[in-house]
Each structure stands twice: as C-alpha cells, then as structure tokens.
C-alpha cells in the first residue's frame, strides 16, 4: 500500500519497521515530527528528554543494553549532543543506534545555517542522506544495518524540504529483533585514555571499511543519460537537479555522504564532459572531489547560503529564467508575530516600557524583538540568555544589573538555562532572570517538557517545580507574575531590579493556543469613545488594526486576553 507521508513520519515508520524500541529526543524544527510520529507506535518506547545531550546519552545506553535505539534533533541540537556523539564514535554500539539531525538551509526556523555533515566527519561516524519520504524510511532501516555491521552510530541527515514534504511511501512490516545480549567490555565502553588510545585506530579502520563499502552500496546510485553534463549530488538537491535537468544530465546520487566513495566518483567524472556538484550549504562533496584531483564546478556557481531549488539549477547550469508576473506596488512584508492572546505580549510590553537591556533566548518569545515591542538585545542559542547576561553584568557592574533582565521559556530553561542560573547564584551577579512559563514547548508546536506534568504520550509525569528549583539553586527571591496583569508584572520586575542579589520572576500563563485554555469572548471597540490615539497598537497584537481612524478588533483572532483594555485610557475597549 502506498501512503502519502511526511518525510519525518516516514522516518518514524522506518524506526518502526527496523524494530527500534527506544526513542529519546528534544524537539526542534524541522526534526520534531519524527519523534511525535514514533510515539504513535505502541511497540516503541518514546520520550522527550530535557535536551539533546541527555537524549543521545539515553539512546546510547539503550543501544549498549542491546536495543535498537534512536534520538532526533535539529542541527543546532547536535552541537549540544556533540560531546556524547564524538565519544560514541569510539565506543561504537551494541544494537544499532540511529541519530536524526535535521538541517535548515534557508533558516526557516533556526538561528544559524550550519551544515551537520561537518559533525559526522569530525566525530568519525557514518551519515546517510535521503531525498524523499520513501528514502527516509529505507535509509533509516539501512542505517540500523550499517550501525550494527560497522559498530558505529549512524546519522540520518534530513533537511527542511525532505523533513517537511510529503510523498508516497510503500509500507512494510516490522522486524522484531528483541534485545541483543549485553557483554561487559571495559576496553570498548569505558573511554579512559588507556582504552580510548586503543579504540582510535579501530575507528579509523571502521571509516576505511565504510568508505570501501560505499563504493558498492545501493545507497549510492549512478544514472546515465546525456553525458555532456554530469551532476554529483545528494538529498533534496538530487530532486532539484532531476526536475531542472531531466535527461539532459547524468547523475551520481550519494546516499552515504560520510564517508564518501572515491572509485565511483572518479569513474563517473571520467565519463561526463562537464561535472557539477550540487549541494546546499558547505562544499563537502566538492572539496572531496577536488582532493581527489577531479575538476568540478560547485560553490562558485551556487554559493554557500540558502537553498538552491530547481530554479537555481536551471538558471546556473542552463541559463534559463522563468517569466514572471509582478504586482505593481509594494507588498508589505508579513513577518511572524506573537499570536493574539500570547501571554508573552504583556511581559514584553512591560520590558519595552522599562527600557531595560533584554538578554533573549530561543522560542516563540524571540518575537519580542520584533516591532513594535523591540524588547530584546540578544538571542544566541538555547540557554544563553542567563549566562550571557551574567557576563554582561559582571563587566558593567551594578548600574547594568539594575537595568537588565534575561528572558527564557520554561522548556529552554529546563534544556540548558538552569546551569546558567547556577552560575548566576554561584558566582553572584545581581541578575534578574524572567522565566516565561507558558506550560509548554511552544515554538515547535506544543511538546510536553519536564515542567508540564505530562510526558510525550500525554500521560501524567513528575513536574519540576520551578520555584523550588530556583530556591534550591540558591536564588532567594523568586516571584510569580501574571503577564495578563501588566501593572502588577511591571511592579514586580521593578522591585526585583532594585534588589541586591540575584532574583527570578516567573511570568506564568499557559500558551493561548493550548486546547485546555478557555478563551474569553472577543473584545470590541466602542467607536464613540475611541479617539484613534493608537496607544493600543503599541502592544503589537495581530487582532488590532486602525481603520477610518478608529480601532478595530478582528473577532476571528481575538481571544479576549484584555491586554489592549489595559492600554486604553479612555475605556473604549470592552466586551
């Protein structure tokens, strides 16, 4: 039976069919649905871990215990998990271990555009790259086989367009592998110097054998058509090249991207007149070819940044450009904005009003940086808000401490914010940390986390008590504010800024999109009272606009949060 499946769902199906029984991940666009879909199969245990490092260690532990295991993350998540990854390359596995890393060329939902193939090369593990949903499933199954055959974790590299595209998939049955025997092997699994020294040559040998295997692996494929143009490519770029060039070119499609073959590349290069490498982001395949002394055209044509698409291939190789119609006047951009009723809005309005330095973090609340709130100074990576503000305050002293805050979501705080808060308490900076507790991991589409009291399957779970945790870390002043009450929230923040000693404010209100959150009836503007002063526009609510010099509330968007009512001094907004 053929089924239309999201790349990520097909990946999960691959886990199921391969007999995987353990899944531990941290959500991150565009990787999240692999784990969400995996959780729908009762045969596999699946969980959200607090961060990617924990997830990978848990998956490695399950592999050592003899179960086929998996962990999934986005590209920047692999940085967090790099520590276990690089040593897992040395220990190898017991049962197969597969890692999903989803890169985001074009940065649809990411803070950078890093190419995860570098991590596979540097950690000396194998990496495969599918190009559609069917391959997501097949490559995942093949990855488990490779993992066991070559005693190594195997990374399946996804990119946004593969992860978030649906295409047809042929389903198969699940193979039940059971638990492999665990045998104590100190030399293999205890990575202290004396053992690791002996493992390193084994790792190098493993890579050499993998490279040899890749020469004949069915995952690498040659398609000969017209040989005037030759294309070496992998992943989604294969689809772009096929659509643009069709039979006008011959293709070497690499399914195993780390380590790469040499003989088939040399052979392919010798049979085509002009050779192109089509790959997004960094010149990994290109540099490999050049190191082999093969002349290729790659980044000089396609560049390092963003996505290539079929149009890019057509334009750069064939010189063809599509005819386009245009709209003859400027079309205003529509950047993402905080949702109507978002609890972060009230908090960020307070911060914008107070004019403080805001050390930001990763999540929906990064949108606090957008106009009209503009209440953010930095956003770097998961957890950096607190630690970076600590450094900022240490060098700028007490003046800065009274005029700065860190903002971090509940999930991000659990991920890697708490260690920053430990540093604030331990090394004593008078830093004010605001935890935006909306009781969910919002940005990635509502995943549970250790503070929500539910696990991945939605079953009741232990909930971290943020107040008690902050106290235990050594923060004496921990207060809770309701961001729908802006006056109270502002007062609390002001008081905490004035205090000596580090403090935490928990801005607590569940995400307005959560199903259990009851909405109030939409608010209306009394046109007789409204003078068109635009004070209500300062909160940047997408439901509010001005038409004919009067405020209007879009009743399809408004959830009656009442923030605009607090803004209106004329009492023009009501039910």
């Amino acid at each position, binding site marked *: 039976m053929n089924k239309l499946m999201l790349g990520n769902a097909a990946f999960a199906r691959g886990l199921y069919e391969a007999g995987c029984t353990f899944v531990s991940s941290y959500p991150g666009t565009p990787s999240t649905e692999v784990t969400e879909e995996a959780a729908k199969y009762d045969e596999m245990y699946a969980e959200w871990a607090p961060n990617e490092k924990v997830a990978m260690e848990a998956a490695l532990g399950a592999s050592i215990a003899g179960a086929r295991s998996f962990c999934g993350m986005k590209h920047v998540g692999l940085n967090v998990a790099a520590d276990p990854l690089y040593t897992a390359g040395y220990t190898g596995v017991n049962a197969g271990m597969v890692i999903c890393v989803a890169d985001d060329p074009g940065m649809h939902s990411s803070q950078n555009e890093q190419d995860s193939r570098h991590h596979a090369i540097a950690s000396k593990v194998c990496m495969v790259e599918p190009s559609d949903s069917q391959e997501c499933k097949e490559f995942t199954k093949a990855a488990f086989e490779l993992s066991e055959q070559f005693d190594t974790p195997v990374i399946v590299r996804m990119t946004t367009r593969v992860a978030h595209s649906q295409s047809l998939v042929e389903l198969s049955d699940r193979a039940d592998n059971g638990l492999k025997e665990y045998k104590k092997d100190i030399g293999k699994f205890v990575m202290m110097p004396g053992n690791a020294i002996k493992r390193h040559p084994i790792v190098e040998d493993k890579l050499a054998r993998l490279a040899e295997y890749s020469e004949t692996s069915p995952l690498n494929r040659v398609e000969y058509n017209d040989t005037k143009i030759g294309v070496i490519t992998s992943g989604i770029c294969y*689809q772009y090249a096929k659509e643009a060039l069709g039979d006008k070119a011959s293709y070497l499609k690499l399914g195993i991207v780390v380590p790469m073959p040499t003989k088939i590349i040399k052979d392919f290069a010798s049979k085509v007149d002009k050779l192109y490498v089509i790959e997004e982001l960094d010149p990994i395949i290109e540099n490999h070819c050049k190191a082999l002394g093969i002349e290729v055209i790659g980044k000089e044509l396609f560049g390092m940044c963003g996505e290539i698409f079929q149009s890019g291939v057509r334009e750069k190789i064939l010189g063809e450009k599509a005819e386009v119609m245009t*709209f003859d006047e400027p079309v205003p951009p529509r950047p993402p904005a905080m949702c109507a009723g978002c609890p972060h809005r009230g908090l960020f309005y307070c911060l914008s009003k107070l004019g403080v330095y805001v050390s930001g973090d990763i999540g929906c609340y990064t949108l606090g940086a957008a106009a*009209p709130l503009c209440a953010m100074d930095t956003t770097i990576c998961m957890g950096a808000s607190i630690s970076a503000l600590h450094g900022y305050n240490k060098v700028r002293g007490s003046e800065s401490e009274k005029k700065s805050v860190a903002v971090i979501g509940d999930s991000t705080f659990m991920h890697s914010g708490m260690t920053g808060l430990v540093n604030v308490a331990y090394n004593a900076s008078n830093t004010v940390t605001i935890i935006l507790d909306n009781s969910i991991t919002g940005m990635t589409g509502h995943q549970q986390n250790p503070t929500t009291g539910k696990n991945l399957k939605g079953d009741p779970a232990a909930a971290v008590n943020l107040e008690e945790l902050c106290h235990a870390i050594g923060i004496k002043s921990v207060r809770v504010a309701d961001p729908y009450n802006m006056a109270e929230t502002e007062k609390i923040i002001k008081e905490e800024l004035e205090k000596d000693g580090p403090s935490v404010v928990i801005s607590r209100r569940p995400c307005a999109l959560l199903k259990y959150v009851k909405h109030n009836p939409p608010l209306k503007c009394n046109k007789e009272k409204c003078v068109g002063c635009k004070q209500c526009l300062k909160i*940047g609510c997408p439901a509010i606009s001005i038409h004919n010099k009067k405020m209007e509330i879009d009743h399809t968007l408004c959830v009656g949060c009442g923030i605009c009512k607090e803004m209106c001094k004329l009492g023009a907004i009501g039910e």
Partner: protein
Amino acid sequence: METKSIMIVGVGGQGSLLASRIIGNVLQSQGFDVKLSEVHGMSQRGGSVVTYVKYGDKVYSPVVQKGEADIIISFEQLEAARYVEFLKKGGHIVTSTQSIDPMPVITGAAVYPEDIIGKLTAKGIDVTAVDALTLAEQAGTAKASNVVLMGVVSKKMDFNESVWQSALEACVPAKFLELNKKAFALGAQAAV
C-alpha cells in the same frame, strides 16, 4: 503527464495544512505521484505561509518556484499579491476576499494596497474571489474558510465531486465532517 503545481498561501494559523492534505488525498486517489511541502515552526506564528502541492506521472522537487504555479489558492488578499510572481502564465488564482493587516501595516510602517483583486484581474489573470470567511461562518465556524476554498478549487480542477467528498471524509475528524461538507458545498456554489 507534465507535473502540475499548486500553491496554497495565507497567514499562519489559517489552516493551509488541512487544505493541502485534502488536495493531496484527491490527487493520490487519482493515481498521481504527489508531493506536498509544508512550512512549520517560526513561520506559523502569524507570518506569511506557503504550502506547495505538485502532481503528475513523476514528481521530483516538492517546491514550486516563480512562474511555475498552475493555481494559487490564497486565504488572504495580500498573500495573493505577494505570490503572484509564482503564477504561471495562464494560471488561476482562487482567493478569499479576507484581509488581515500584517504587523508593519498595524504599526504604520507600511500601507495595505487597495483593490488587490481588481489589480490582479487587470493583469489578465483569471481570479476567482470569494468571501470565504462569511461562507464559513454560515457553515458554522470561521475556521472552515479553508474548506470553503477547497469547494471553490474543486470547480477549477477536473475531478468528480465524490472524490472530493471522500477526501474530506479521510482528512476531517468525524465530528466536524458535516460542518465541513457544508462549508465545501457553499464554496463550490460560490465558484459557479
């Protein structure tokens, strides 16, 4: 058959994912190779969102590029204007007349263009504009405007009504099925 391309454009949260799944179901049931491409994450937060649907004997790239779309389905007028560059010559636009001010218009940094539908029609484009929001509210909820537009689109594509009905049954939860069937019917009527 040569690959055909459809784009579904709108504002994050308007339900373009369901729309693409309904069309995907219709196309798959007709034996086509199908690819859909969606955007998740940051762009969903009230930003401009695009979903691609491609079908034919064999589909390679899941995305649609400038000058390639046979049909653009727009949930909001401004988004129709934004993506007109993607329309193929001779292509159709199906749009809701709904307008939602983007943040730069709300803050006064930009102006929402007037008479977008008139200006698109003046370019010689076949535009079908429907007040999908009002029709959806007639069916029972503003949220069904995506399905109203599916009703409109069904009249622009050569597939039997029954095929669309079974796609609705496959994609919409049972308790909302009647409501959505009504929304679909209102859309189909409005297209004629």
